[in-house]
């Protein structure tokens, strides 16, 4: 789920994993992470402002994606670094990898490659969701690293997702669905038989499978965030089902 926030996939959220015990990172690592999170907060703020300006000035969402795509692509692609950060912050590489990959997928393999859907409303939906989510998330990590976390940021981080997450999923699914006819018509990213590798790939059916995969994945991630929320905001002790 591109718009999901994985608790702990961050860069500075060491504390959450450790139940309050902060593990010390090296000074250099901490400095870098602070810089990274401030930069990302700023980047997504700029993106948010650019989107707002465009809409205020033009009164329409048509052409909005084209006008902000450079900023979006830069900052979203840069987030690949978070997979590397996992080694330092001791969070799950797999979960972070999945989250970042799904964002990269939406940006490059859907929105960028299939130009005809760039003016869909669903694109604006997920862009807005991502922007609010990322600004909240990165500022949360920043303040955490600086040891001065205002309660309202913690509150935002663990409450916004309740609306934002389903909204983001809706935006992504609607966008992929809108893209399907164009993929079928052009046969893009597909490989047909016969060929010397004896394999075939149909991007159209691949996208349909991706859409169905949201069904098992979305509830799990959403429930995970709900459990985290109860633990962090209400201090509930959750007996984890470990297997």
């Amino acid at each position: 789920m591109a718009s999901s926030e994985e608790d702990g996939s961050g860069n500075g959220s060491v504390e959450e994993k450790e139940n309050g015990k902060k593990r010390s990172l090296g000074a250099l690592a901490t400095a870098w992470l602070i810089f990274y999170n401030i930069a990302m907060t700023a980047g997504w703020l700029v993106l948010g402002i650019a989107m707002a300006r465009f809409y205020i000035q033009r009164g329409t969402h048509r052409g909005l994606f084209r006008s902000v795509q450079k900023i979006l692509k830069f900052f979203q692609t840069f987030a690949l670094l978070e997979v590397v950060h996992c080694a330092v912050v001791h969070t799950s590489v797999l979960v972070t990898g999945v989250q970042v990959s799904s964002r990269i997928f939406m940006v490059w393999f859907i929105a960028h490659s299939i130009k005809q859907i760039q003016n869909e409303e669903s694109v604006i939906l997920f862009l807005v969701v991502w922007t609010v989510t990322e600004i909240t998330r990165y500022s949360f990590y920043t303040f955490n690293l600086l040891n001065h976390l205002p309660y309202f940021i913690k509150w935002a981080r663990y409450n916004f997702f309740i609306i934002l997450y389903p909204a983001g999923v809706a935006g992504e699914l609607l966008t992929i669905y809108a893209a399907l006819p164009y993929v079928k018509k052009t046969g893009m990213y597909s490989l047909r038989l016969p060929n010397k590798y004896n394999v075939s790939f149909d991007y159209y059916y691949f996208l349909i499978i991706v859409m169905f995969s949201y069904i098992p994945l979305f509830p799990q991630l959403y429930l995970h965030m709900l459990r985290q929320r109860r633990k962090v905001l209400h201090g509930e002790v959750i007996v984890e089902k470990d297997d």
Partner: protein
Amino acid sequence: MEGTALPLEGGGLEGLTLRRPPPPGKKAKKAVLFFEVEILDAKTREKLCFLDKVEPQATIAEIKNLFTKTHPQWYPARQSLRLEPKGRSLKDEDVLQSLPVGTTATFYFRDLGAQISWVTVFLTEYAGPLLIYLLFYFRVPFLYGPRYDFTASRHAVVHLACACHSFHYIKRLLETLFVHRFSHGTMPLRNIFKNCTYYWGFAAWMAYYINHPLYTPPAYGDEQVKLALAVFLFCQLGNFSIHVALRNLRPAGSKTRKIPYPTRNPFTWLFLLVSCPNYTYEVGSWIGFTIMTQCLPVALFSLVGFVQMAIWAQGKHRSYLREFRDYPPLRSPIVPFLL
């Protein structure tokens, strides 16, 4: 005083049941010390079971059987008993008195979930690919277009590939029934769904392309196929040799573990370089099959299999090192000198 009843409490003698001292003149009988066992839920610490008068030589297996009597839904295979709530599981062969417990032993119980026997899982996960591949080979209806139903491929390599694939899985089935000696009787039930999805899914994916009417035979023709067949057969023989050697290390019904060594069979000489030559040969077989079929899904299956087997080999290698002081230092887990 004669015939004194001995104290049953105080002085740290709880749980001691001593017989009355014999009348003078008779030989004193040995005192028998029974244990008490309490079993607590590892997560909730709830007291689930209390057993008294447990023999000191009782094994964990016997205690598990006693526990099942009071909680029949938890048959022994799904019980994990430990000394600490998050500690490692005690083995069935462990003897009560040799454990670091007082005369009242406390065990923590975790439910491992529904279990299924290894043999059942292996048979199911291997029978699937055998049958599924044949469905595609014979071009059963609804797999390819109707005009191809029940037709045969015109490429010799396709027939050879079917023979090799079928041979491979028949070998695995027979080994499961007659060769392997399993350390554990069971595994969690959900594994059968996971494993079958993997084996059956990949088998269908590979078989679809190899038996497809638009299949493209190997670029280097007969030379490539012959080389691939040689590699495949060599590795199948190797893999079988290792399985037999491992079986002979362990007497029937036992769970002993010994360091495997090369035997007179040259295929087992790979033990000099590698801890798990069975995995090495298995990867080799699939590389052979990849070259034979020149099919990308086969290459991917080989790669995924290699990654999984490398992880298992590392684990096995490390446990050999932990268990045996004199483990040969030259050996690597799965790839000689490298991995």
